C-alpha cells in the first residue's frame, strides 16, 4: 500500500512538463507569441531588404 503510493508520487514527479510556461495563468505563452510575431516581422523586413538589393544590383 505504502509502496504503491510512493510509486505513484514518484511517477507523478517524473513526468516533466513545461510547468514554467503554464505558470502565472499561461502568461509566458503570450510573451512567446509576441516575441515570435516581432521576430517574424523583422525577418520579413530583412528578406524585403535583400530583394530590393537584388533588384538594384540587376541594373
Amino acid at each position, binding site marked *: 500500500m505504502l509502496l504503491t503510493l510512493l510509486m505513484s508520487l514518484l511517477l507523478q514527479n517524473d513526468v516533466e512538463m513545461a510547468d514554467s510556461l503554464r505558470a502565472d495563468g499561461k*502568461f509566458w505563452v*503570450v*510573451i512567446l507569441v*509576441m*516575441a515570435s*510575431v*516581432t*521576430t517574424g516581422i*523583422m525577418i520579413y*523586413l*530583412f528578406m*524585403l*531588404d*535583400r530583394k*530590393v*538589393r537584388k*533588384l*538594384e544590383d540587376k*541594373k
Partner: protein
Amino acid sequence: MTLKNTWWKALGALLLIYVSIAGLIGEVPRLPILNETIRNTYFHVPLWFGMMTLMTVSMVKSFQYLRKGDIDLDHSAFSHAHVALLFGVLGFVSGAVWGNYTWGSPLPIDPKIIAVEVGMLIYSAYFILRGSFEDEQKKARLSAIFNIFAYAAFMPLVWILPRVTESLHPGNGGNPAFGKYDMDNLMKLVFYPAVIGWILIGLWISNLKQRIQKLVYDKQNT
C-alpha cells in the same frame, strides 16, 4: 549584405524583440487607474519619437533637395514623411485604445490630440500636393517647400501648444515630461531601447520605401 549597411538594422530588430519580451515581464510601478497599462509607454510613446525623427529627416532632405536639385533627395524626403505618417496613424490608434480604458474616452478633448490631428492633416496635404503634379521637378520643388513649412507648423503645435494649456498627456500643462508616469530606472531600461529601436526600424522602412521609389522612377524614365 555587408556588415556596414546592416548592423543598425539588426540592432533595431534586436531592440524591438527585446522590448516585446522585457516590456511584458519587467517590473513596473503599481499606479492607480493606469495599472498594467503603464506598459503601453513602451509601445505607444516610442512611435511618436520615431515619427518625429522621420519628419526631421524628411525636412532636412527637402532642404537639401532645394539646394542641390537631386531627385533622389526628393524620394528620400517623400519616403520618410510617408513612414512618419504611418507611425503617426499607429500612434493615434494605439493611443485611442489606451485612452479608452484610462481616460474614459478614445478621443478626449485634449490639446495634444487635437494638435496631432491638425498636424497629420497638414502632412496629408503634402501627399495630395505631390499627387497633383505631372512634372517631376516641379512636384519635387513645391512639395519640398511645403514639407519644410509643414514641419515648422507641426513641431510647435505638438510640443509647445499643449504645454501652454491643460492637457491629459504627461509633460504638458506645466508638468515635467514623464512626471506622471513615475518612470523608475527599471522602466527606463526598456523605454529607451524601445525609442531607439522604433527610430531605427522607422529609418529602415523609409530606406526600403525610398529604394523602391528609386527603382520605379528609373524604370519609368528609361
